[in-house]
């Protein structure tokens, strides 16, 4: 037990955030901000890429791809006639995730500095920050921070007299989870419906406007100043071998102190939930944990000694995903949870590929029937088969993100699903914490009636 161990907070990104208002550029610079950028601008590009690689930094957006490797896939500025772009994924929409929001809210300059470092390293001409549309306050903060940085010559032509010029364009989304998927993001940034593209070609070769594009998450980029400051190798010494550094975990659900916590990777879920998060409130019992956002398979209470580490989480059959830890206590009906999660993916499916578009809708229909106790045993099997028929067959990972968790709920909490069938209704009898939760209805669906006449 970890009753008497101290909470293992490891503020690196957030190092000075408790003491000062780092949204002000002076405070940020006083705390050592933009020093990494100055350092980077005097290094050569290859050297920076080496540092990224050495740090072992893996993407914080969800897929966990090594940042340095991705950056090295781009052609060098002298190897292409096209402009190079950086696209910052600030679309944070994975249920349970709110860390990028806090980074932008408190550390806009760390993000800007990281963006500038990465832009310089790859030779980008313009960096676009694709900011989730709902994040209005954060938009204002980042916009103001950008203005401050611009006024100091940090952004724009000839950054700090280095001869390198880059512009940062703040682009707001408009409410679509799929625009967090990297190619959906690019489509959206091009002014289209945010439907993912088939890969290859990968964005590193043909991304925004068919030009080489690096796409990274807010947290990934906001970590770069720390890496440059301390050196890649030193950064890699933090965390575990496969999961270096720190991560900002978003803790939510039935936990006493929800919030964002920056921890060294390799910390256990138990530490996060109990020591840091204060455990399960109201004397309830822990039932399940979703360790990486709603897209990942669930863990049950017996699995919370799993460490927050990419490989360990994979071994446990789940994923670290976006770092969103959702705690579920024993009042939750897992069929209702499944239904609500499926409704989310149905609502967010872009509609481009068949298995996801049709499959998520079917899943919702089956789960609704299960929840009200009208489903047969065959329909529970069918639900699993539908998940299986979606899995691995879609154009982008959203389809998998819908199928995997649902299949895991059934696998881990089969008895609850079974009881809905056998008892002809929800065993919680209306007492579940998720009872009756309403999902967004189609926002503006209109069945068009046509006024067009056809002459005989």
């Amino acid at each position, binding site marked *: 037990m970890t009753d008497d161990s101290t909470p293992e907070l490891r503020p690196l990104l957030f190092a000075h955030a408790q003491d000062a208002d780092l949204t002000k550029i002076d405070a940020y610079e006083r705390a050592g901000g933009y020093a990494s950028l100055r350092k980077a601008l005097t290094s050569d590009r290859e050297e920076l890429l080496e540092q990224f690689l050495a740090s072992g930094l893996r993407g914080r957006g969800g897929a966990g791809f090594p940042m340095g490797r991705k950056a090295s896939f781009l052609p060098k500025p002298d190897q292409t006639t096209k402009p190079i772009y950086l696209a910052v994924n600030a679309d944070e929409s994975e249920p349970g995730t709110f860390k990028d929001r806090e980074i932008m809210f408190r550390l806009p300059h760390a993000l800007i500095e990281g963006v500038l470092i990465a832009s310089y390293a790859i030779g980008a001409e313009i960096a676009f920050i694709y900011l989730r549309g709902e994040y209005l306050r954060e938009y204002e903060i980042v916009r103001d921070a950008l203005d401050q940085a611009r006024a100091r010559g940090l952004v724009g032509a000839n950054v700090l007299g280095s001869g390198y010029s880059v512009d940062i364009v703040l682009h707001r989304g408009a409410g679509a989870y799929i625009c967090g998927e990297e190619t959906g993001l690019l489509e959206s940034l091009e002014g289209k419906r945010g439907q993912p593209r088939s890969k290859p070609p990968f964005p590193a070769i043909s991304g925004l406007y068919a030009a080489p594009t690096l796409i990274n998450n807010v947290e990934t980029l906001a970590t770069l100043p720390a890496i440059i400051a301390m050196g890649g190798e030193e950064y890699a010494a933090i965390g575990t071998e496969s999961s270096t550094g720190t991560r900002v975990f978003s803790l939510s659900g039935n936990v006493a102190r929800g919030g964002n916590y920056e921890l060294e990777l390799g910390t256990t879920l138990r530490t996060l939930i109990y020591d840091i998060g204060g455990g399960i409130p109201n004397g309830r019992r822990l039932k399940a944990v979703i360790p990486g956002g709603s897209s990942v398979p669930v863990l049950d209470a017996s699995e919370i000694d799993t460490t927050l580490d990419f490989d360990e989480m994979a071994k446990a059959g789940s994923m670290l995903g976006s770092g969103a830890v959702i705690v579920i206590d024993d009042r939750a009906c897992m069929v209702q949870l499944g239904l609500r999660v499926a409704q989310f993916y149905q609502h967010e*499916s872009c509609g481009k590929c068949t298995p996801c578009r049709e499959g998520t809708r079917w899943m919702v229909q089956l789960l609704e029937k299960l929840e009200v106790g009208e489903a047969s045993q065959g329909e529970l099997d069918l639900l699993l088969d539908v998940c299986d028929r979606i899995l691995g067959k879609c154009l982008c990972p959203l389809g998998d993100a819908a199928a995997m968790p649902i299949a895991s709920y059934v696998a881990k909490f089969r008895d609850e699903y079974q009881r809905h069938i056998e008892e002809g209704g929800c065993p919680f009898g209306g007492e579940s914490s998720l009872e009756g939760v309403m999902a967004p209805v189609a926002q503006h*669906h209109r069945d*068009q009636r046509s006024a067009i006449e056809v002459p005989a």
Partner: protein
Amino acid sequence: MSGVDLVTVTIDERELRVPKGSGMVEAALAAGIEIPVFCYEPRLGPPVGACRMCLCEVEGIPKPQAACTLTAQDGMVLRTAATSALAKDGQEAVLEFILLNHPLDCPDCDKGGECPLQDLTFRYGPGSTRMHFSKRTFDKPIPISPLIALDRERCILCYRCTRFSEGVSEDGQLVALERGADSFIATFEDEPYRAHFSGNVVELCPVGALTSTAYRFKARPWEIQNVPTVCGQCPVGCNTWISTREGKVVRILSRNHPEVDEGWICDKGRFAYGHLDAEDRISEPLRRIRRHGFEPVTFAEAAQETARALRAAGSSVAVAFSGTETVEEAEAMARIAREALGSDRAILPDDPHPALDAWRAPLSAIRNAEVCLVLGDHPVIERAPAVDLWLRSARRAGAEIITVGPTGSVQTLPGSAPAVAAELASGSVPEELREASRRLRKATRVALVWSEDDPTGGRPIAALASALRLGDGSGVYWIPSTPNGRGVAAAWHAAGAGRETTPPPPEAELGALIVSGDRAAADPVVLALAERADFVLTSAMFMSQVAGWSHILWPGSAYLERAGTTVNLEGRPQRQHPAVGGPEFHELALLAAIGAHLGLAVDAWPSFESSDEHAPLPARGKAVPVPVTPTPMPAGSEEGLALVTYESLFSGLSVERTPTLAFQLTEAEVELARADALAGGISTGDTVVVSSNGSATELRARINQRLKTGVVRIPADHAHGLGQRVEVRKP
């Protein structure tokens, strides 16, 4: 085959050598292996991998892959559902998902019998459904235009139609609305899909979601005959299939000639067959009885009377052509006039400069060009719609498209094309053309498009081509004003044994006038001649003032009713075959009979067999240097705005007689440049008065951001009585 890198791929255990980078769906097909697809259609651009129907196993990759997005790489091992459980599972899953919300209403679906979804379900589909919830429902077929009905329940959201609209015709009218399972295909609000190529989406739809209103419930695929022919509506000559049932045309489909049309046809070519059955068609040979109108005559009488009149007229005979005749008809008339009667008088609607043949190239070569230069005031899309598609396709492939004209990328006053061509040819160009001139001289693959009426038959563009020393990779595309203007001119010249052509004298008496076709019959110049001629023979489908003046009125045939050769704008002779009967005796039969009376042997039927082969493009002519003729640039003026007019594709007899096309007719609209509109306080949608020379007309204003400031544009049908300079103001 030099330069093509061959690689070895294995599909279903069969080793194949295919060009590196070629599509795996095609590679499989070449080996006789079918990979089922829905969304895949290479003509729509890069594959999108949306429907997932084509899932296959690729060795070394754990998840099934969309074969349509794969290209051949050396050593690639692909397995289709025939040999891979993974692929089979994927294919079955996708087909089940596709059918989930499909109404399965094949018995009353027009697509039945030629439906890929029906076929694939028949071959691989589940025998029963596991979906017992209510399906997606929508209002039953709604017209998205008077031409096209949409049955949203049948739609499988493959996005072929919207990709066509966005990425091929680039009209941006047909789109997907909403997201995810709620998505559906629609036009803006309740506005019809109004674009030049809308009908292609009906052919692209792999299920029965988009259907032609005209064909709806008309026939089953096994009840129709399909006749291969060539469209006679414009100088492109797209290759088509005409479906007929019980002697009536029920639909027109593309017959994909990859060099000419790539399988797209415009709405005029596809839908304007309604005029064949128009009630006001001249249906039998007529003779005019003074003041009392017409009475029927027999074929023999008509031939005999005409021959007698022609013989009497001798060399005082003139022929007015329409450019819609077949080459054989034009040749027969030319020989009667020139050989038998010794007259060289003709009105030719088009007469291309002979040097142009040296730069003959297939239309498909436009796509490979580095630079395309389009000169002229006539919008290409209105005159030769397919050329517009080739130009767009070239731009998407990376070509630079320079358009010079009132709405061009280089903006000029109306009537500037010959002067611009001369400037570019001489190399001394004003500032705004400097860049274009530089690019043209640098590029090795150039496409020059001439969309302008000029009496020299495109001499300025020939001089430009000559000056640029265009080589093999380049082409010159001179767009005639009529579908077979090129073939008619060639036939006329061939019959003259080198003699000059003289236009009929405007004042002198004329012994006889042959008015060939409705277009000539509508020409005021021809009317003036007819009024003075001792004898007029008119062959036309419909009544007109000229027809009313005629002594013998012959029922004209439509291009869908006859056999013959037409020469398209490329200079490619193509064969038309009759799909339906039409008048009992065709023009050629009459001309043969007249010829016989005049002692001239003319075949009553063209001497070729029916075939559905694609016609090749004849070799280039020999290059003849064409010197530049200096031409002055039209001068601007302080007063008023310069007017440019154009003839819309959706005009003319066939469109007017096809009620479903009425919505495509041009609106009574005047296009204004943004600055001119702002200056006059005019917004899009306002009613304005356009006036000049004392005549005025009320039109709806529309701001066209691409129009040159100082110029207004009005469709010819709405510009009657207006001069070259106009005033536009709010009433």
